[in-house]
């Protein structure tokens, strides 16, 4: 049994014994004590999404609408209009597609204070197959005006993100995995701030921009390549996809001249696309590659096998980074001739 979590500091023990979504459930309980306006909603996935932990503690502040995601997000909008702060949890694939119009029109258009904790993001529910994979959700959610999009690296960052979302105005979409993902962080005191990325490895040869489960893998790849090939690889944990930390991206463009993005998402419209937008609009070129699902529907399998197959694990990252290191581009100090 894991011990009760008190205060705001996570111990290594907690991090290693609780899954990402269990941590979410517990943090929501802790927030529920301080914020009587917080209510929880789920669509027959209270157990799977771990919002059920909140339900156990605050049974009168929890609504299960049955298997009806459209109704759930509409109800959340109505509740927010009466001054409540709804936390809504279902699988990312249903939050972003089955109820996309309710999220867009009822919540984002009205700019309501609804927090969506979308679990089972990417291929984290691997064996369930494409119907339960969410590989388009970031693209969809970041195209909704007023929406903030966060993909925490692990359970500890999820705790930080959920806490930060309470004080962040307007709708927030937080995408987590299934809950069995290993942690990168061992403490939550690293200065998490919505919209501000975290440089977890310094480097000058190339920058890896990662989100979600690829953060830990990128760190491991960076360490491996430094030790074995002497490569200096910067790793950025881009936990907030919107608003995007453009400053960190431009710093990488000018300082490392090579950028590679890793995301558990279709390469169309997600993290890589968002980063590419920033680079393209700056007029300053650099070697650039985005890695994710190459515009395909993902295969069935255990997540770790799928991450390996789609080059999102440490081995895949090592391989892709070396490819980008070979990429040819005009690498001079004079930006002027590139306009």
């Amino acid at each position, binding site marked *: 049994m894991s011990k009760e979590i008190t205060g705001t500091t996570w111990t290594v023990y907690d991090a290693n014994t609780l899954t990402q979504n269990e941590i979410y459930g517990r943090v929501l309980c802790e927030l529920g004590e301080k914020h009587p306006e917080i209510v929880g909603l789920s669509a027959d996935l209270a157990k799977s999404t771990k919002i059920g932990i909140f339900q156990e503690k605050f049974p009168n502040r929890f609504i299960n609408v049955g298997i009806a995601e*459209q109704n759930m997000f509409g109800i959340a909008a*109505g509740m927010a209009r009466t001054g409540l702060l709804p936390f809504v949890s279902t699988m990312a694939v249903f939050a972003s597609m089955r109820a996309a119009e309710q999220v867009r029109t009822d919540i984002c258009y*009205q700019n309501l204070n609804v927090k969506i904790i979308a679990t089972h993001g990417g291929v984290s529910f691997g064996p369930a197959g494409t119907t339960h994979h969410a590989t388009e959700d970031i693209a969809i959610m970041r195209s909704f005006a007023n929406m903030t999009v966060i993909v925490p690296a692990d359970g500890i960052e999820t705790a930080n993100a959920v806490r930060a979302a309470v004080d962040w105005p307007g709708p927030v979409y937080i995408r987590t995995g299934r809950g069995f993902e290993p942690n990168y962080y061992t403490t939550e005191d690293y200065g998490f701030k919505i919209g501000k990325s975290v440089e977890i490895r310094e480097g000058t040869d190339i920058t890896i921009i990662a989100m979600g489960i690829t953060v830990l893998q990128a760190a491991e790849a960076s360490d491996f390549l430094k030790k074995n090939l002497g490569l200096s690889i910067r790793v950025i944990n881009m936990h907030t996809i919107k608003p995007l930390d453009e400053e960190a991206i431009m710093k990488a463009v000018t300082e490392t001249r090579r950028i590679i993005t890793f995301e558990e998402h279709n390469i169309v419209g997600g993290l890589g696309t968002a980063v590419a937008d920033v680079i393209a609009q700056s007029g300053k070129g650099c070697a650039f590659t985005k890695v994710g699902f190459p515009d395909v529907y993902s295969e069935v399998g255990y997540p770790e096998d799928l991450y390996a197959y789609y080059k999102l694990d440490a081995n895949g990252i090592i391989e892709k980074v070396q490819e980008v290191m070979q990429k040819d581009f005009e690498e001079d100090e004079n930006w002027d001739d590139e306009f």
Partner: protein
Amino acid sequence: MALTNDEYIRLMETAKKLRHEMVNITMEAGGAHIGGGLSALDIMVVLYFKYLNIDPAHPDDPDRDRFVLSKGHAAIAYAPVLAERGFFGKKLLDDFNKFKSPFGMHPDANKINGCDASTGSLGHGLSIATGMALGARLQGKKFRTYCMVGDGELNEGSNWEAAMSGAHFKLANLTVFVDRNMHMIDGPVEKIMGLEPLDEKWKAFGWQVIQINGNDVKQIADAIETAQKATEKPVVIIAKTVKGYGVDFMENQTAWHYGSLDSELAEKAHQSIDKVYAAMGA
């Protein structure tokens, strides 16, 4: 009888005045969903001028009653109702549909004082209203939530998710009007995608059903007072209405779901409205 004679006369005068205004706005705006606006108007008049616990001086009062116009295209009726009730000046309606106006075909709650929800995409409002009714209960508040859906709108499956949940959560503080005007864009509702037996459907979903003539302010008032006494079930008022009510050449005409008026046609509409109300002694 829920209404005194004075109240009845006042509500009839308000409805008549607003029908004239709707005709004018439709002409100036270059077009509007006037058919479904005219069918829905009387219900909104009775709610806003008799029953809703609201104060235009405090439009954000957390204890106010709520109204969600799920058939958002009836904004052509809703906006003049809110203006007449004192939420904003009538002058604002001159720019209906125009560049950067707060008033388009569908209401935007963040731009319109007194509007409780942005609507327009059909099948959304009943869930929002359900959330408001739940919000009242969870916060121990006494306010009531009213919602109006179109009959064609009930083709959208999300309404029935909401209907299921309203009964499941025993939301007696929620009242829904179905503006049963029998017409949708492509033709008669029963021909395009039939709803009958509509009362049986709602009953099967666990709702208390009241059926009225939805253009008769007395019947509307009686139904609301019955709904306010509900203790266990949410109430649906299936309001049989006439699409285009009050303007003879629009009545029961599918084509007048959306239409525009030139000054000549508008004049005919004004005359028809006067005639209809004169016949009712108003």
